[in-house]
């Protein structure tokens, strides 16, 4: 495989409310930032990830293109998935060998609708969606299956939110309270503080191949492994306490081939972190989600891409030499993507 590296990463200062910025306005600053950082104005390939249902209107990515100044016309594609899969498509495209750079971005404004309900229509439309099983309900099913110790879950939330408070891009959120007050539950056994915040935001990443990576950046974060796997859709066909697809993707990406200093996991709920840590077989000394993770900022459709960006940033800044970025999609971690990055 050809050497491909992340050479620049930018994200918005995420908000828990609609600031009035349109999607192109959300994207424009991060695109400009990675352009400035790399000095590149044109890219061999551009790919984005988003979801129309967040805005409640078709073709979110069409107006987003207006933020790119796509003139003369560009070679461009879009996945209706988290931007992490757009990064995967771009990485594949760079393997052809005829282009050396790619721009990837993801964006989402979940403040515009009711995310909890919207995610229901991701389910089988004939049998599951009509039951009204919503985002929190199915996450709670998984939390129940995991059966984690409440103290461990609270600790994950406390750590994530504290880390989020020291991350200028994440939200400032209160710590979980220790009481067993039933008012504190969102859907049992999930407490309100276990639920990721509604967040608007965007992120952009520049990939460069071969010599260009070193020319653009002193510490490129090389993608040494990247793989994703999907599992059956029906919750009853999976052991929700485990994540076979995350484990398979991690093995295919080679997570276990070396130490992992930092892992940025797309764990929207604290029990998902426990499931993913096990599936990825992360060593005990790996620092998990030092950015605060999705529990501190969850701009849906960019959250996974941000995990890869945050994992890359540790290498770009010279603070780490081997990190892992993870992205997830589908109900209860149905679909998992794992990226191994090295200095």
């Amino acid at each position, binding site marked *: 495989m050809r050497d491909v590296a992340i050479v620049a990463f930018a994200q918005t200062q995420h908000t828990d409310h609609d600031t009035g910025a349109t999607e192109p306005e959300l994207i424009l600053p991060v695109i400009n930032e990675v352009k400035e950082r790399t000095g590149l104005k044109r890219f061999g390939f551009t790919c984005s990830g988003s979801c129309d249902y967040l805005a409640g209107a078709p073709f979110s990515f*069409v*107006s987003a293109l207006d933020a790119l100044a796509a003139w003369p016309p560009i070679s461009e*594609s879009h996945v209706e998935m988290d931007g992490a899969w757009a990064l995967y498509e771009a990485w594949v495209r760079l393997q052809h060998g005829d282009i050396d750079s790619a721009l990837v971005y993801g964006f989402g404004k979940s403040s515009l609708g009711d995310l909890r309900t919207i995610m229901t229509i991701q389910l089988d439309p004939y049998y599951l969606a009509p039951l009204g099983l919503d985002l929190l309900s199915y996450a709670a099913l998984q939390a129940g299956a995991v059966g984690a110790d409440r103290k461990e879950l609270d600790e994950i939330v406390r750590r994530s939110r504290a880390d989020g408070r020291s991350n200028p891009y994440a939200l400032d959120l209160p710590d979980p309270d220790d009481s067993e007050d039933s008012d504190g539950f969102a859907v049992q056994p999930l407490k309100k503080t276990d639920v990721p915040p509604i967040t608007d935001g965007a992120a952009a990443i520049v990939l460069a191949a071969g010599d260009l990576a070193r020319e653009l950046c002193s510490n490129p974060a090389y993608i040494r492994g990247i793989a994703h796997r999907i599992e059956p859709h029906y919750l009853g066909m999976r052991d929700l306490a485990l994540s076979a697809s995350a484990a398979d993707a991690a093995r295919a990406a080679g997570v276990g081939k070396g130490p992992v200093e930092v892992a940025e996991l797309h764990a929207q709920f604290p029990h998902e972190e426990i499931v993913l840590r096990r599936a990825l077989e992360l060593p005990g000394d790996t620092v998990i989600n030092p950015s605060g993770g999705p529990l501190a900022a969850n701009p849906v459709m960019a959250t996974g891409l941000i995990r890869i960006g945050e994992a890359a940033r540790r290498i770009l800044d010279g603070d780490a030499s081997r990190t892992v970025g993870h992205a997830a999609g589908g109900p209860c971690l149905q679909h998992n993507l794992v990226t191994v990055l090295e200095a």
Partner: protein
Amino acid sequence: MNRCAVIGVGQTHYTTKRRDVSIAGLVREAALRALEDAGLTFKDIDAVVIGKAPDLFEGVMMPEAYLADALGAAGKPMMRVHTAGSVGGSTALVGASLIQGGVHDRVLVVAFEKQSESNATWALSTHLPFNASLVVGAGGYFAPHIREYMRRSGAPGHIGTLVAVKDRLNALKNPYAHLKIPGIDQKMVESTPMLWEPIRYLETCPSSDGACAMVLSSESKVTGTPAWVHGTAMRSEPIFRAARDTVSPQAGKDCAADVYRQAGIADPRRQIDVAETYVPFSWYEPMWLENLGFAADGEGWKLTESGATALDGDIPWNASGGVLSSNPIGASGLIRFAEAALQVRGLAGEHQVDGARMALGHAYGGGAQFFAMWIVGRERP
């Protein structure tokens, strides 16, 4: 770059309503036919790429999650592409990319639309929170571009009718085509109501349920009769830009130039034997003839009028009946790419173009701003 070939094609019969199958049943039907054509099973597939137009059409968000089981994707990588009307073409290109990039050996690509579970014009007209909606659907959007083409080129008013008749005659030879109108002629088309001046009812595409699938393979894993990929390209331009030429978009010209360069085509009219192009409104045939370099500016309608693009002409366009005869939106682009492959594999049946060796598959989308194309050939590139 690694070589890539189409080794299997599967289509469903396109029709207004497939009440007998779910969305999962529909895509599985196409996938199983493509696998059968390739002599393979789901076990032989390394990854699945799925495409469709906006999720609002069926009301299922990110349907790859729901469709993973039906497409044998569990335990494998699966991706969902969405590039508006060009999505079917882009889906094929993402699938091909996985092979050309050396990541996988065999990829299943599937695209679908089950329009009977939706209202496309409504879904296409829903306005963004910060944009005005004209509530006109695709026809209302493209009609002014067609009028501008007529003004510029001086094309007489009956050209659109000729395309509408030609494509529907071809559809009579395609077992999968949706619209089969025996006795179709110019008079019948002209007698239908005007929907969006100058587009009459029979000059527009139907709303179809349907899915299309292809099995793509690396060189070492080819089975059966391959159609070799000689070139692939995507191009996009912004929807809002002063001086953007929506009649002959620059992105379409650039995309064609890129794919021709890769396939060694200097004269598309002479070197391409058959083209499956995205013509949802009949006037788009002469417009794309010019945009794709088959005719000089302002001359496309003359080619159509001369019969050059008919099944027995020197450059048959849409031998399958095209989008005008079957339009499961998200699949329409992939059908073009798949029909191009069928032609060079010599497997197009009654609508086979004799001796077809090089074929163009073309798709466009958005406000005529997204383009996806490929050239497939009988010979290895």
